[in-house]
């Protein structure tokens, strides 16, 4: 961190925000492009010239111009506050993500714990939005969301704990640093997913759970536009709605980056020292995160949606038992080898 000490702290704190905003604009465009290609069409092609690259900017401009509608009989304060709380929670979690070997918002020793704790705030903001809207559909969406997020936190935490058992640290920077080098068979990187066969299972559980946590298809029940008409977002419009959208995409990125840190070596280059260093590290890290985000999009445009009871069944009777057994197996493996 020595090279960056001269830059004021305030600017450093803004770094993740810049990343999120640029990423969100890019991801929304990418989502449309991915959807387009999966569905045998082109997606946005006009705005900005080359493959409609400015589509997200156009959307943003449109959203800024929209009237800020607050329905009567809503709980005004909570209604206005919910989108910001949601984004704040997502944003705050980025503080402990090691973007590169040279930059990390806060190098605390309980990084993993902090992320899991702060993302729980998302549940509260969703319930806040759903309840304050004074709309039955929103309320149903919020109820679904609360149940879903609370349930899926358990397998997420179990999967993360499995990694912690192997890595031996809650500090995400330490976790990343211990994954550097290409020692397995001489060329495979020391990423955790390659270190322990049961961590592959843990990753699958982790990935399914983060799909549910970030409300992506096939677990997008809180929003399910064809049933609940966008659920807790129904009554929101303009920039407030855009905050939800931003928070949702930020959440996707956050969980994907967490996955990249925990399983895919964070900012480590897959080629050892080659293409290493802080700048390349950042690029590698974002690339890994974006690949996971892409898989999320790919799944979204392929699968139908689960039903609420099936969702709970999948969590409580499939993922949680497997994750517990897997946790024990990982611990045993670590003891033996």
């Amino acid at each position, binding site marked *: 961190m020595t090279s960056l000490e001269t830059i004021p702290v305030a600017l450093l704190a803004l770094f993740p925000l810049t990343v999120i905003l640029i990423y969100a604009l890019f991801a929304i465009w990418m989502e449309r492009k991915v959807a387009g290609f999966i569905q045998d*069409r082109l997606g946005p092609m006009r705005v900005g010239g080359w493959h409609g690259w400015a589509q997200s900017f156009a959307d943003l401009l449109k959203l800024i111009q929209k009237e800020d509608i607050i329905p009567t009989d809503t709980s005004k304060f909570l209604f206005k506050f919910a989108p910001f709380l949601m984004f704040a929670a997502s944003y705050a979690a980025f503080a402990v993500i090691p973007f590169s070997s040279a930059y990390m918002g806060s190098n605390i020793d309980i990084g993993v714990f902090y992320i899991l704790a702060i993302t729980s705030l998302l549940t509260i903001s969703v319930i806040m939005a759903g309840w304050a809207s004074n709309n039955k559909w929103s*309320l*149903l969406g919020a109820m679904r969301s609360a149940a879903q997020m609370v349930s899926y936190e358990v397998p997420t935490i179990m999967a993360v704990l499995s990694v912690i058992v192997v890595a031996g640290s809650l500090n995400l920077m330490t976790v990343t640093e211990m994954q550097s080098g290409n020692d397995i068979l001489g060329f495979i990187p020391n990423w955790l997913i390659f270190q322990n066969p049961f961590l592959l299972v843990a990753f699958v559980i982790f990935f399914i759970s983060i799909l549910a946590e970030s409300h992506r298809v096939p677990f997008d029940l809180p929003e399910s536009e064809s049933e609940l008409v966008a659920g807790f977002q129904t009554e929101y419009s303009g920039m407030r709605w855009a905050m939800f959208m931003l928070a949702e995409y930020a959440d996707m990125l956050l969980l994907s980056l967490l996955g990249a840190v925990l399983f895919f070596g964070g900012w480590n280059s897959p080629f050892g020292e080659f293409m290493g260093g802080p700048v390349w590290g950042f690029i590698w890290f974002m690339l890994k995160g974006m690949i996971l985000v892409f898989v999320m999009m790919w799944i979204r445009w392929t*699968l*139908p*949606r689960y039903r609420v009871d*099936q969702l709970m069944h999948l969590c409580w009777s499939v993922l949680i038992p497997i994750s517990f057994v897997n946790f024990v197996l990982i611990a045993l493996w670590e003891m033996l080898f």
Partner: protein
Amino acid sequence: MIEVVRKGNSRPEMVINMGPQHPSTHGVLRLEVTLDGELVTHVRPHIGYLHRCFEKYAEKMDDYSKVTPYTDRMDYVSAINQEHGYAIAMEKLLSIEVPDRVEHIRVIMAELQRIASHLLAVGTFGLDLGAFTPFLYVFTEREKILDIFEKTSGARLLYNYICVGGLMRDVDEDFKKDTAEFVRTFRPKITELQDLLSYNSIFIKRTANVGILPEKVALNFASSGPVLRGSGVKWDLRKNDPYSIYDRFDFDIPVGKGEVGTLGDCWDRYIVRVHEMEESCKIIEQALESMPDEGDVQQNVPKKIRTKPGEIYSRTESPRGELGYYIISDQSSKPFRLKARTPSFVNLSVLPAISRGSLMSDLVAIIGSIDIVLGEVDR
């Protein structure tokens, strides 16, 4: 704020209003749903938001032939079948014989329209369950059918093509080639749809054992079309009460078998539509082969049809089921009474009976599997 109804010691219930503006009610259907948590305890459909009183219009038109465009607008996704039904009813009433070529063109058009309509039905059904991509895949295919229709009739949605005694105009010279080409390219797409949607395990989970409609109930409610056949009843008017020239063709009636769940569930109703598209392809191929190349498509029907007193109830198999026209004629040139018995209206009335005890998400699946068109429900 949000009211909760509590009756006596029963569990608290919430009355929620689904529609008329709701993405999954396929138009302007309003359902008054009573919920216990997410469990549906009661559904009360309210219809009529699209009511235009088609029957009154038909009485006020000054000619029988002017009713045809109005029939188009009942079920706007299968307009040809509506016209076909009306033309057949009038021809039965007036005992008009239609040339062979016309019958062939009508059958080909009707079957193409059936495929187009079923494509829309299965596509939107997937959409209701959150599968967005199949919807766009099937629309690509539907587009090809609409192109054929556009070439033939000049319109893409409401054709006004089949008229009493014949057709508005002859088909264009490429018709046979285009249609044959479409059928050839369409067959593999059905397999693709089966892989992508029908046998997707999440899709099966969402639709199997949901909204079970037993055979007895289906008959008592006079359900028809894929809804009835999904319950395992082999009943298709093209076979059981043949009209036009359907008795000349060799095709099967697909019925639900309870393959992945219980007989008569949403998946069965869905799969019947998919198989029916294959059967329609068979019919089109046979009809293309036996279709005479030359011939007049306009029968000698006077411009202004005058009738004697009479009554007819004529029914045809539209993509959604039994489409009946009950026409009472008198001495004048317009119907004394024209009643359209539309399949969606009848099929929808079964909804409260089969949705009790299902979840909110199931209700969406059930509506999708019944495949209603509100223009036809409300007329």
